[in-house]
């Protein structure tokens, strides 16, 4: 795992990243985060309810079968990398419509994805940012 501060420093010039770092810091102090925060994380493996549902969606749809248990990429691309550049809009389009020619199925028929795709985006962003650890997550107490 990269250290949190290092990840922050690397992305300091990006407005989004600044916000994330701030969120992360406040979460570590177990204080409520800003309303516009993408995700909250504590100790690397405790997250806000929306992000938790995002991870559960990742798990239920067996995304790791193609993208790897740590989003490191297998047959599918490494999402820890992809999410550094993929916009939320493009993420939404991809997960709903898939990329059938590349082997990515459309998930628009999945109620779980329809309900939780934003949480899933937040989870993957957190993984990509190095803020959320791979593996099992639980709710912030």
């Amino acid at each position, binding site marked *: 795992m990269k250290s949190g501060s290092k990840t922050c420093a690397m992305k300091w010039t990006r407005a989004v990243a600044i916000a994330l770092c701030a969120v992360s810091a406040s979460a570590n102090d177990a204080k409520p985060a800003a309303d516009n925060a993408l995700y909250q994380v504590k100790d690397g493996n405790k997250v806000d309810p929306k992000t938790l549902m995002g991870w559960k969606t990742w798990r239920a749809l067996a995304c790791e079968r193609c993208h790897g248990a740590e989003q490191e990429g297998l047959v599918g691309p490494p999402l820890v990398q992809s999410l550094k550049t993929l916009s939320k809009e493009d993420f939404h389009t991809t997960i709903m419509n898939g990329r059938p020619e590349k082997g990515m199925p459309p998930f628009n028929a999945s109620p779980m994805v329809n309900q939780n795709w934003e949480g899933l985006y937040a989870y993957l962003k957190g993984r990509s940012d190095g803020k959320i650890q791979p593996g*099992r997550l639980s709710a912030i107490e």
Partner: protein
Amino acid sequence: MAKPSNWAAQAGDYANHRYSDLKQINASNVAQLQVAWTMSTGVLRGHEGSPLVIGDTMYIHTPFPNNVYAINLKDQTYKWKYEPKQDTSVVPVMCCDTVNRGAAYGDGKILLQQADTTLVALDANSGKVVWQAKNGDPKIGETNTNAPHVFKDVVVTGISGGEFGVRGRLLAYDLKTGKKLWTAWSTGPDKELLVDPAKTMTWTNGKLAAIGADSSVKTWKGEQWKLGGGTTWGWYAYDPKLNLVYYGTGNPGTWNPSQRPGDNKWSMTLFARDLNTGMAKWAYQMTPHDEWDFDGVNENLLVDLTIKGKQVPALVHFDRNGFGYTLNRETGELLVAEKYDPKVNWASKVDMQTGRPIVDKKYSPGTTGADVNVKDICPAALGSKDQQPASYDRKSGLILVPTNHVCMTYEPFQIEYTAGQPYVGATLTMYPTPGSHGGMGNFIAWDAAQGKIVWSKSERFSVWSGALATAGDIAFYGTLEGYLKAVSIKDGKELWKFKTPSGIIGNVFTYEYAGKQYVGIYSGIGGWAGIGMAAGLTESTEGLGAVGGYKDLAKYTTLGGSLFIFALPGNSATTAMR
């Protein structure tokens, strides 16, 4: 098929022996084996199965899009190519690899089971489609990876999709016309199972007894049998004397056992069925109420053994669950069930009275329940052996078995079914068996009458390649690093190896052309071993450290797609035999 010069079926015969009487290449000269010719398949995915050889023609198949090439052995030119147009939407539901285990031959036709569930019969001379039939619907996750099998004048095929809530079945078609003869479901009402409640037998309480009415539906909660799994993607066998087809069924729907109470019959089951009617003569469930994804699809080798002084028409099956089973193939009587990897720990043994495994609660995700991570279960979900078929040496009576030596953590979780979406419900990590040689595979010789390992040769990675034994007293197999190896059947000593460009998950085959013996193998990594299995090997959250399996494999190999054909030096049989 009767001619040893041909390799006219995936297993070389009906009995799944994968044995050849050819002995030009043998223990004393195999060290001189060299490449005779090679060919690209043009596809970079997992290459399972093997080509077929009939007379002067070799038939090569590829992973998705499932091309078939007929090759003139005289000069290695193409006679014809069949390149089906399949909807690419089938690829995602095959996640994560698009393997195909090969073609079949009969009545002047090449049979191909395409990924999109189309079964096609091609004219072996021209490659033109003679007939085609459809087995299933990819939109609900139904696909095919299995080889079709030709037994007499019947084509037998199955279905994949155990991770998509597919309801498994075996299907039979008329070889001449493609007319469907019967469908035998793995789960559901008696009529659809093709069983006779009073006559279909199973091993219970130390004897064979009729399975009784509603044997499947009463072992499921509500109508869960409709998503029951029990898919049929393995290698089938046929006994012409008994007119019985043998095959196994896969895991029950969802890997979260708490969600589907009951024995979940007839998932994880060996079936013996009449070739003409599909009616089951007997059934034996190896892993009732699966909690580990121990599919029962592995091949059955039909061999005649002497057990406790009695001659028995036997069937030998190396299950994913780590037990090597020997049954009487005529009656279904359970004779032997012993671990073929001593590190198997999920069950202490199989109770020979009930035929059921004695499960260790410590390694039972169904006991610990959802959202609990159960650690160090051996074997892992891909089993002590997966589809990679074993070989029976008719001379020594030994069975040569390519195996996995991998353990896992298993955490089940609640999951809802959506048609066409994965229906798994468990998170797994896999790693080399702790407290062993550090490798993830073994190549073993097995005594099926005793249920004992005779010798075991360790391998760095799972041996995911089908074995071949020959009358030359040698056995061949491939490794995930890409080596094709020849070993002495007597003691497992390595006699020769050759590094192909990519990892090997195909099956070794042999044939004779113009008086010379050839041995061949596909080189092209993929399948669960090459991709899915590797997923867990960098797991860092569970304190396993960097076991490095995945990174290790990447050091040795990458995707490929080629065919390698080997022979002894020299241009003629005489020089080769010198």
